[in-house]
């Protein structure tokens, strides 16, 4: 299958202003396989993915390496947001109350 991967921000600029990548994957491929495929295509971007400086979203949610992909999934590479990076253990609401 071929998955389409949306690009944003500095990543788009880094990849010659392409707004998306087409990446061939085995049927049932996972996010980790996608990262490996991107690593082979562009080691610099692949390294940022491996270091989790760039995150992968699948259908508008941050995905883990084991997440299985389908050709119909909406996949994106997300460089650091302008307000900060995605931190799983971020401040819970009750700290503010």
């Amino acid at each position: 299958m071929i998955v389409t991967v949306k690009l944003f921000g500095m990543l788009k600029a880094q990849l010659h202003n392409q707004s998306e990548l087409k990446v061939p994957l085995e049927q049932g491929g996972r996010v980790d396989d996608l990262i490996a495929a991107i690593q082979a295509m562009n080691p610099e971007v692949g390294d940022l993915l491996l270091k989790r400086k760039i995150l992968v979203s699948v259908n508008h949610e941050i995905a883990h390496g084991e997440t299985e992909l389908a050709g119909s999934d909406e996949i994106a590479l997300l460089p650091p947001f302008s307000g900060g990076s995605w931190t799983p253990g971020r401040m819970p609401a009750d700290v503010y109350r």
Partner: protein
Amino acid sequence: MSTVDTEAALVRVQRETFSIDEEIDRVRNRSTRIGGIATFLGTARDRSDDRDVSRITFEYYEGMAQKKLREIRERALQDFDVIEVLILHRYGEIDIGENIVLIVVGAMHRADAFKACKWCIDELKQITPIWKCEQTPDGQVWVEQHP
């Protein structure tokens, strides 16, 4: 107005600027129980990391950004003692001094409104796929992080 229409008006990503008074009224008119409204307005500044900035461009991930903003509003309504929350963010080219982002929180009491408002803007900056590109004398710089 249906629930969907209401939510669409209270959570928006848009190119054009906005009237703060109109947005405050949108929250104020939701309930006569509201006794305090807290706002946060983010504006475009001309200095960043010791560089002059002449213009800012915001890019966002259509669909995911709105989803994350809706989640922030819903969690604020659930986790804080507040009555209504409005979250609005602009995209595209924004000149120095212009509005960028607005949070409006209505509550019975000011303390809850202030706390929820701060939480909403902090959370927005953490989880919403929005990217900022600053035009500087050295060229365009994609901003990764701001406190």
